[in-house]
């Protein structure tokens, strides 16, 4: 009996540690659950990633890797949402021609980060419908044809030696915000247990796919 318990515990630990990605329970606004809100057409804001390299002599911010991971994260989110029947509108930063248009995007990102501080600490605010960016988001021109704005944040570190316990190499969060009222409709979080700086795309996509699983989207999640 003891041996069986020990073996099953070992198998469980092994199965967790070999998985590349892990998703947390999503935080869904009651409006979205009850069907009062919907995610059909989205504008995805450029992903922002903070990635560091940590060695025995200290930490170094890795701007190039951060940008590369941000690009992969954006593609993964875009692709997975399309697979779930969501229409993804063009990247607003690519469409921005003037400084003023780029500042508007940056200001909206800042606004999300201000609210992000609280929802990271108390994700329950999303479920209670108390997290909002205010209806000023409705004046965000690139979001005109959309019903939802998507914000992506990630942070992680490349550690040597890699630390298997307690520290997750990479965490990401994706927030869905009503593009008319500014209310945060959902917050999904996932992490990658292995290096994302080199083999990025697949790992991030599988993490996000899993995190999206319970979100009410036009198409059902793909069968495993």
């Amino acid at each position: 009996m003891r041996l069986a318990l020990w073996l099953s515990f070992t198998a469980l630990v092994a199965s967790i540690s070999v998985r590349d990605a892990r998703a947390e329970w999503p935080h869904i606004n009651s409006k979205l659950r009850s069907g009062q809100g919907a995610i059909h057409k989205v504008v995805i804001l450029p992903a922002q990633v903070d990635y560091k390299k940590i060695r025995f002599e200290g930490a170094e911010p890795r701007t190039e890797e951060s940008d590369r991971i941000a690009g992969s994260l954006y593609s993964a989110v875009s692709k997975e949402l399309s697979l779930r029947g969501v229409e993804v509108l063009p990247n607003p930063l690519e469409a921005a021609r003037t400084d003023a248009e780029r500042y508007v995007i940056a200001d909206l990102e800042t606004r999300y980060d201000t609210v992000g501080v609280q929802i990271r600490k108390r994700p329950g605010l999303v479920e209670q419908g108390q997290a909002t960016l205010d209806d000023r988001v409705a004046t965000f021109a690139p979001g005109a044809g959309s019903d939802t704005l998507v914000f992506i944040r990630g942070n992680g570190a490349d550690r040597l030696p890699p630390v298997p316990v307690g520290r997750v190499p990479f965490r990401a969060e994706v927030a869905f915000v009503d593009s008319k009222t500014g209310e945060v409709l959902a917050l999904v979080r996932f992490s990658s247990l292995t290096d994302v700086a080199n083999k990025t795309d697949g790992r991030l996509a599988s993490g996000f796919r899993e995190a999206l699983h319970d979100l009410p989207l036009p198409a059902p999640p793909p069968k495993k």
Partner: protein
Amino acid sequence: MTVALLPAKGKPQPPFVFGKVDLKLLEQCEALDRQFEKRALVYHDAALEKHLASLAAPLLPATALEHVQWKFHILRYPAVNAFALPNGSIYVDTGLLARAENDDQVAGTLAHEITHVTSRHAYLFNRSQRTKTVATDVGMVVAGGLAGLAAVYLLGSPAGNPDQTGITAAILGYGRNFEQEADRNALQCLKQAGRDPLQLVRLSLIIDDKLEPEPVSIWKDRSPTQDRIAYLKAQAGLDQDPGPGADGGYVDRFRAVILQNIQLDLDTRRFRSAVAGAQRLATTYPEDAMAAYWLGECYRSLGPREARPTQQTKEGQRDAYRQTVRRTEQEEADLIAATPEGKAALETNQQKAEEFLRKAAGFDPSLSEPYFGLGVLYEQQGKNKQAIEAYGKYIDLCREPADKERARRRVEELTKISPEGVK
């Protein structure tokens, strides 16, 4: 790869030899410059960038420095800060420009940052931090054997904050020695350039006059800025604080930056700073519709908060910061509004908001924005009929379809609550 340094205190310094670690830091700085651009954090205004460069020109060393290309940028960030990357990119935050009173104060800031670059502070700090971290890690392993190794491995280095690298120090501030060297040199450079060195002391006083809750150290009684003010005053031979140095020409020149910063302040819940910025514009341009509009809008956003921070004790300040971080904007406002002081402040701020929004509408009857502000204000006060009227006026004047739509949605919501208010 050697270069002669600018003598910071008149005495010659040994040439700086670039190592592999320094070149790596330089590379990271170039990448950071690109990232600031990519994230639209750099404010572009050719005239202002040229003005900053002209303020800096007499403060720069006569000879070129290896791996330094001087560039002066405005960073769209509401903190009252400026920083220099070791590659010669100097960033002045909109928050600092919005609070500085005159060009001498900005020149003082630039002189301080230029010294960090010419004295290679970022490289020296980076090298020393790396050595300290490795030494502490090795010390842990030697002292603790396997347990020490495991501790370093699992918990990270005990040598303080792992984020404290050359770049973060360049942005957030170095140790006391480097900061004092930069201040000493800045005072000297300002004098040589024919600028008033006391304005650097004045700017430090402005920086120390904190309007927003900030993290407070448990260990120190004085903030680094207070230490800096004492040092600057001693260096300048001052026993009193220098008086205000307001310059209307400065506000004229940086008007667009101050406006940008008001929006950034509002977006980051720095309501008191937003009011201060808008107040400055409204004082300089007493009959300007946009200045009056922003002041009204800022008072409305200030809600039940006092225009000046009320927490004087360290515990009070720490608590105020914790509340801001933990609570949403609405939760914080509700909590303060429930107190007698909050109620009184809310009433005063709403009166001021209405006064300035009405003034703005009077100064320029074709301006739509004040009516939206009034609509929101009346909505907050529960005066739904007046709110619907104000939104109606906004819809009439506004040209942007998305803005009209936003106001229409608000009217729809209010009509559900108060049908008699329909226009």
